[in-house]
């Protein structure tokens, strides 16, 4: 049995980037009440790479949205770098997100109207900062796209677009990078490049939280959280793809 029982970790401490404290989320639908999350407590420590896995409808995406302050929990609270999200209004939340979080998801990560360079520079511009051209080019260089800075997203491949999105996240150096199926739409090679980039990001001190259903992708993480029916049902540390796949298939039975 490779899946350990879920235990509530000590969620305080200065090295914690994101704290989830007793999170629940329920929706009202025509069929009645749907409990998407039923009490999740977890601390994502700084400089770690965590993968969240689980079958469809297990609450992975809801968890990610709550952690990023994109949705409000029914009960419980979320802290980013020690700041509770609950008391913030839309503008404060936007500013916090802008300063501390980056996002990469499956597709449509970029504004088609802007060049790769402008897409990377946009968060800084939105924050009213002067654009450091060298730093933007440097971020693009780190994802291997220095030469394609002037291209627009429709002129880039899916993998290249994903790398631009990661360059954008790297450029503002957010504390936390949230990724939702970042390799879902990519071929194996492009996917590996993207995962290596995420791994490097974590190694350099940023926190990465990634939702995925691909055991190979999850194997790049330090820790894998397994979700089922809105609860954390298992954790694995430093597991390889085969171990993760076994755990997943046990869950899906």
């Amino acid at each position, binding site marked *: 049995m490779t899946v350990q029982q879920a235990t509530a970790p000590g969620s305080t401490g200065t090295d914690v980037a994101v704290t989830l404290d007793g999170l629940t989320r329920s929706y009202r639908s025509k069929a009645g009440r749907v409990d998407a999350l039923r009490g999740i407590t977890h601390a994502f420590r700084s400089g770690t790479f965590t993968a969240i896995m689980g079958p469809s409808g297990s609450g992975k*995406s809801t968890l990610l*949205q709550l952690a990023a302050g*994109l*949705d409000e929990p029914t009960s419980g609270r979320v802290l980013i770098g020690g700041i509770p999200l609950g008391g913030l209004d*839309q*503008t404060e939340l*936007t*500013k916090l*997100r*802008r*300063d501390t979080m*980056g*996002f990469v*998801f499956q597709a*449509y*990560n*970029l*504004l*088609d*109207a*802007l060049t790769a360079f*402008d897409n990377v520079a*946009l*968060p800084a*511009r*939105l*924050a009213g900062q002067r654009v450091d051209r060298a730093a933007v080019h440097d971020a693009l260089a780190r994802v291997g796209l220095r030469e394609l800075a002037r291209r*627009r997203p429709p002129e880039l491949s899916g993998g290249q677009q994903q790398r631009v999105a990661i360059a*954008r996240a790297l450029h503002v150096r957010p504390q936390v990078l949230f990724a*939702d199926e970042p390799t879902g739409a990519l071929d194996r090679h492009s996917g590996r490049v993207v995962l290596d980039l995420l791994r490097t990001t974590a190694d350099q001190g940023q926190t990465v939280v990634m939702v995925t259903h691909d055991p190979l992708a999850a194997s790049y993480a330090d820790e894998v959280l397994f979700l089922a029916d809105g609860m954390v049902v298992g954790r694995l540390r430093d597991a390889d793809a085969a171990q993760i796949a076994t755990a997943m298939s046990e869950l899906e039975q």
Partner: protein
Amino acid sequence: MFHVSRQSVRASWPAYAGAFVALTFGIALIAVTATLIGAVETTGTRAGVSSAERLQLDDLSSMFGVMSGVSLFMAIFVVASTFGFVVATRQRELGLLRLIGATPRQVRRLLLGEAALVALAATVAGCLVGTALGPVALWALRAIGVTSVHLVAPPAWIAWVSAAPSGVLVALLGCRRASKRAAKVPPTAALREASLERRRPGVPAILTGALTAAAMVGTLVLAGQLSLLAAVMVAVFLPALMVAALTSLGPLVVPPVAALLARPFVERSVAARLAAGELRTAVRTTSSVAAPVTAIAAMAGSLLLTLSFTVDWSSGQDRAQFAAPVVVTDPSVAARLAADPAVGVVDVRRTVSLPVGDGDTEDVDVVDLATAAAARRLRADDGSLADLHGRTVAVAHTYLTDAGVHLGGKVTTRIDGKRVRLRIVAVVPDAPDLYGNLLVTPGLVTGAPTQLFLTPRSGVSDHRLLRAAQALAGGAAMTRDAWIDGVTADARRANNLGLLVVLGPAGLYAGIAIVNATLIGAAQRRRQLRLVGLLGATPDQVRRTALWQAGLTTGAGLLLGGTTAGYVGWLMRQAITRDLAGHPAAMTIPWLPLLGVAGTCVGLALVAALAAVGVRRRANAHSVA
């Protein structure tokens, strides 16, 4: 943020091309209208323009005023719908902006920046087009016979000064709602896979809807008591209100109506089934295409019906009042007719133009009470015609409400340069073509003879009277019915000309809006239709789906607008029937212009849909290559 605005407009200009064209035409229309009003002002103050010509010019001025009002109304609402479209189709992109750190205010500024850019370009283009079209419009008015006065165009800056601010105002008003909606797009919109369009209406939309519903119920309850004047007021304002309500509630109302229309065909044609599905999901396209159709159908339909029924009403009134069986339009034979043994009474209609009240000129009838009573059934409903002599006046019913006067009150006029106050001593029934709103006796002023109304001597048949009159006056003598038919036909012709001037620009604008919305909508669904193609739809099926979609949407718009016009027509009809109190009145429905409006709407939508399919196929060829 302006940097992103500029890049957005540059990268996806086809979406803005619609907004640009709509705005450019709006501004050009306003510029042309300003030129026309300016021309009337400039020309009117020149020496050598007679008072009759000045009167004609004043009428033209107010006609152009109405025209620019209608144009402006259409412009605001078309631009609003275009910008609303732009926002609705960019949900995911706006959500992405929010996600990576744009505040709601920044998103709003982005949209306003885009609107400002489009408005700037459109203002320049619109002013240039308007300046070029101004002299053409002035020439056209003379050519089609609206006026015989030679109008001189004012300096171009007059048109620019009025058009440019109007353009900016229209763009900002149009974008206001859209930018507010854009600011409300949540960051999670970036994560949504399917862009299912929202159809929950906002508070203002619900309020407009409630107000319109209240107006409908109110007029329905009052239908039994509405005076003719009140019915005309309703006919003018209700369609505008209805259009506003249907536009804001469009996404809620139009798709079900279109689906209802599609129902009989869904089982038979796969193209119709696909189209019906698209109508339900692409809610915004559906309502954006239907909105201008509804607007033009409701407004043009209501005006056409109202004016036609008004002519029916006046000819009904004429017939009710008409005792003389024969009319002679050549007054010079009056004395010889009076001597003819077949003729009983020769009633000479005499009129004089007098300034009444605050400067308006009215045609005043100078009546011989005895002959008018015999030939035109002139009688007092209120007061007494026996008192009509010297400085007194009898007025028609509608004049009481129109001018806000009452029996025993005074009407001020000028006779031979002197101010004269006439006491109202009698109220007479309306008979617009037999006598005007005001009647005086020959002792006060002399009028010029215009027509002769003949009654037969006792024992003489109407037919013999007609033959006797024709012997003296030739073709100028005719039966009462022939004369009324002629008068009615003239009135309809004048009305149609007026409608062309008033509704022409608005109709053109609605046409642009229909084409625009169809093209943008098609561009947005490109991916979907490529998928349909991959699943095995032939190019012909794709084309037929587009045609079905355009046809069903336009049909829904026409149904909603037509229902509005029909309701207004029904109200008018009720009021007219009651006003005529039992006298029969013809009901003339102007089918040809009505069907013309409907056919043009459908035709434009179908052509635009076909054009969009063509563009799409070329785009597909590119993407494959």
